[in-house]
C-alpha cells in the first residue's frame, strides 16, 4: 500500500508542476493588459508605468514564473493587485466556503442519488422507477442559474425559510450557516444526484442479475443483506468512479452557484480575478483547484483499493 501511495504521489507532483507552468503561461496569454484593467478609468501613462513596475509586469515570463514558484514554496501566493489583500488570506477565506458547499452537495447527491438508484433498480418496472427516472431527468435538465433563482423566489422571498445570499461560518452560527447553505447545495447537488442515481441504478441492475447474487439468494440470505451487502457494495466501484469524476464538475459548478447565492468561495474569487486581470489571485486559485483535482483523483484511487483489493495489487506491481 505504501509503495502504491508513493508511486501515485510522485505522479501527482509531476502533474502539479506541469499544471503550474501551463496555468502561469495560459493566464499571461489572455488578451488585455493587466495594468489597464487595474488602472480603471484613470489610465495615465505614469500610472500604468507605476503599476507595471509595482507588479513586476515588465520582467520576462521566466523571471515572473521563478518569482511566483519561489514565493509559493514559502507559502506566499502574492498580493491581489486589485484589493491589496494577501492572496493566501483570500484563498484561506474562500476555501472553506467552497469545500462546505461541495461537501453538502456531495452528501445530498450521495444520499438522494444512491437511495433513488437502489430503489429504481430494486423496483424495476414499478412506479418508483419511473418516478426516480423522471426526477433524474429533471435534475439533469434544469439550468443551475434558473433553478437557483426559482429556489430563491420560492424559499427566500415567498416563504422566507432560507436566506437568499451570504455566508456565515458554521463555527460562528451553525443554524444560520445551514439556512444559507441549503439552497446552494440543492442547486449544485441536484445535477450530481441525477448522475449518481442513473449510475447506481445501472450498476445495481447488473449486480442483481449476477451469479453471486443468485447464489446469495439461494443460500437464503435476507433481501436487505443481498441488496445492501452484496449488490450495492459491488456497484459502489462504478459509483465512486463517477463521484470522483463529477467532483471536478462540482467545483467548477460552484462558480455559477456562488454567483447566484453570493457565496465568497473559490468560484467567485476566480471570476472576480479573471475580470480584473488579477494575475496573482488567478494563478493561485487555478493552481489550488488543479491541486484539488489531483488530490481527489488520488483519493479515488485509494478508495478503489479499499473497495476492491485487486486494484491495489495491480498498482503495486
Amino acid at each position, binding site marked *: 500500500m505504501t509503495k502504491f501511495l508513493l508511486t501515485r504521489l510522485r505522479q501527482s507532483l509531476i502533474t502539479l508542476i506541469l499544471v503550474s507552468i501551463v496555468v502561469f503561461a495560459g493566464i499571461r496569454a489572455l*488578451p*488585455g*493588459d*493587466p495594468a*489597464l*484593467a*487595474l*488602472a*480603471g*478609468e*484613470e*489610465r*495615465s*501613462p*505614469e*500610472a500604468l508605468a*507605476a*503599476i507595471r*513596475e*509595482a507588479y513586476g509586469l515588465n520582467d520576462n515570463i521566466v523571471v515572473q514564473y521563478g518569482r511566483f514558484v519561489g514565493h509559493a514554496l514559502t507559502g506566499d501566493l502574492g498580493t*491581489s493587485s*486589485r*484589493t*491589496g*489583500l494577501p492572496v493566501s*488570506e*483570500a484563498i484561506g*477565506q*474562500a476555501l472553506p466556503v467552497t469545500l462546505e458547499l461541495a461537501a453538502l452537495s456531495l452528501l445530498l447527491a450521495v444520499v438522494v442519488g444512491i437511495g433513488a438508484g437502489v430503489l429504481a433498480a430494486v423496483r424495476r418496472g414499478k412506479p418508483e422507477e419511473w418516478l426516480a427516472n423522471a426526477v433524474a431527468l429533471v435534475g439533469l435538465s434544469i439550468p443551475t442559474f434558473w433553478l437557483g*433563482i426559482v429556489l*430563491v*423566489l420560492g424559499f*427566500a*422571498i415567498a416563504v*422566507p425559510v432560507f*436566506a*437568499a*445570499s*451570504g*455566508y456565515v461560518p458554521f463555527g460562528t452560527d451553525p443554524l444560520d450557516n445551514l439556512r444559507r447553505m441549503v439552497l446552494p447545495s440543492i442547486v449544485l447537488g441536484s445535477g450530481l444526484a441525477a448522475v449518481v442515481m442513473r449510475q447506481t441504478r445501472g450498476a445495481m441492475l447488473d449486480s442483481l442479475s449476477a451469479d453471486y447474487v443468485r447464489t446469495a439468494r439461494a443460500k437464503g440470505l435476507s433481501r436487505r443483506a443481498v441488496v445492501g451487502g452484496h449488490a450495492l457494495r459491488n456497484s459502489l466501484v462504478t459509483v465512486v468512479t463517477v463521484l470522483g469524476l463529477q467532483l471536478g464538475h462540482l467545483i467548477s459548478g460552484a462558480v455559477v452557484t456562488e*454567483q*447566484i447565492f*453570493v457565496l*465568497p468561495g473559490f468560484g*467567485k*474569487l476566480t*471570476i*472576480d480575478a479573471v*475580470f*480584473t*486581470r488579477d494575475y496573482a489571485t488567478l494563478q493561485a486559485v487555478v493552481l489550488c483547484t488543479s491541486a484539488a483535482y489531483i488530490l481527489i483523483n488520488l483519493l479515488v484511487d485509494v478508495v478503489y483499493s479499499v473497495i476492491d483489493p485487486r486494484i491495489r495489487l495491480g498498482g503495486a506491481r
Partner: protein
Amino acid sequence: MAVALVSLVSGCTSLQSSATEVGGVRKTDERPVRDGGTLTVALNSDPDKLDPSLAQTLVGRTVFAGMCEKLYDIDENGTLVPQLATSLPEVSADGLTVTLPVRQGAKFSDGTPLDAAAVVTSLLRHRDLPGSARATELGPVEKAVAVGSSTVRITLDHPYVPLTGVLADRAGMVMSPTALKKYGKDFTNHPSCVGAFRFVERVGGDRIVLEKDPNYYDAAKIHLDKVVYKPIADGNVRLANLRSGDVQIGDQMGPVDVQSSLTEPKLQLFNSPSLGYQGIGVNVGNVNGLGEKPGKIDTPLASDVRVREAFDLAIDRDLLNTVVFQGMYEPACGPISPQSGIAPGVDPEDCPKRDVAKAKKLLKEAGVKLPVKIELKTSTTPEQGRVGQVLQAMVKEAGFELSLLPTEYATMISETDEGDYDVFTSGWSGRLDPDGNVSNFLKTAGAMNAYGIGDPDIDRLIDEGRSVSDPARRTEIYDELTRRVQGDHSMIYLYRQKNYVVASKDVAGIRVYGDGLVRVTNAGYIR
C-alpha cells in the same frame, strides 16, 4: 424602415409607459429614523484598494463616502460645499495661490487629530505616491504647506480652477498621518480617515464592514451601528436579495431591474442624473497609440468630416434610449452634463435630431462608395450589445454597413488605446468639474485621447476653461468647446446613464447625488 422595425420588436409603447412610472429625479429621503441597526448595501462589483491615493472604482468611492470625508463635497444640486474645509478656498488674483481653512476639532478614526499638517501630508501623498491615481489631478500643485494648524496654502505652477472640484473627490480625502506611517503600503487594509463610520474588516469578494465611529465630529447625528457593503455583480441577484430583505440598498441598478423593483411594494427607488456620458469614439488620428501625436488615417470616416456627420445624423438618440434602456437614461450630445453645477452642458431637447435624407446627401457629396463599411468595437455586456445592434439598424438606412465586434473590456481598452479600431463604444463616469470630462479625452495627445483628436482650437478652449474662474465665462467656454466637438463628430455623444438605487422602504436618510455615490451617513431604519 429599420427604426420602425426596432420600435416594433422592442414594443415601444409599453416601454415608454414603463419609463413614466419611474417618476422624476429623487435624490433623498428625509423621513425620521431611529438609532441602531446594520445596513447592508449591495454594490455591483468588489471595490478595489481602500486607499484614496490608489483607488480607481466608483463602488470604492461609495465605500469611501461612509468612512473618508473630503475637503469638499457636493450637495443635492451638484454645488460644491465645504466638508473637512470650513469654507470654499480663497484664490489669489494671479490664480497661483489657494488657501484652504481646515475644520478644527475633528479626529481620525484612530483618535489622532485632523489639522493642516495632516491635510498637507495627504495632498503630497496623493500627488507623489508611485502609482497614485490622483497624480494627474494634483499635477499643477507645486507646493502645499501648513500655516498654523488650521490653514493650508497651496501653490500652483499655473492657474487651475478645477482644483476645488478635484478636492471634492478622492484627492480631497485626508488620511491619518499616524496610520500612514504605521501601515505604509498596507494602509489599504487599515484605512483611517475622518468619517461617520470606521473600517472594521474586509473579506475579499464578500464584504466590507464599517461601524459607527465615536471619534467622528458629528457622531450624535449618526444613527446606524454598522454598514456592510457586499459585492453582488448580477442585477437579478441584487434585486432578489433586496426582495428577500438580505440587503437594504441595491446600487447601480439597471433599467430592467428597476422596472421589476417597481412592482415590489416594500421597495423604493432613488435616481439622479449622472455627470458622465456614453457614446461612440471614432478613430480620426490615433496611429501611434495613446499620448502620441495624431497621424493620418485613410478611411472615409476618419478622413472626411461629412461622412462622420452623416453617421451622426443617422442616429436617433431618443429611440436608442427607448429601445435599449426603456427610456430610463437621457439622450446626450456633449461631454458635459446639463446637471453640472459648475458649467451646465447641452439639454437633451437641444440635441440634433435624426435626418437620414441629409445624411445620404452628405455621403453623396463626399463621393464615398456605398455602403460605407465600419467596424464597431463594443464591450461584451448585453447592454452594449443591444446599443450596437440598434445603431447597426439605424445607420444602415443612411448607407453605412456597421459590423459589430464584441470585445472583452480590458482587451478593447488595450486595442483602442493603440488605435486598432474604426469606432468603439466610449464612456466616462464623469467628474464634478467639466475639465475632468474633456481635458484628458479631447486635448491633443491627452492621457485618454484614444480618438487621435488634435485640434488647436479645442486645446485652447480646454486651457482657457482651466484658468478662468468666472462661472459665467467658463460656461461660455465649455459651450463653445461642445459646439466645436459636435462639429468634428470624432466623439459622438449618445446618452447619459442615470444613477438608479433601489432601497427598502424601511430605510430613510439615503442620499443619491449626481456623482453616483450612495451616501448613507445619515441613513437609518424608520421609526
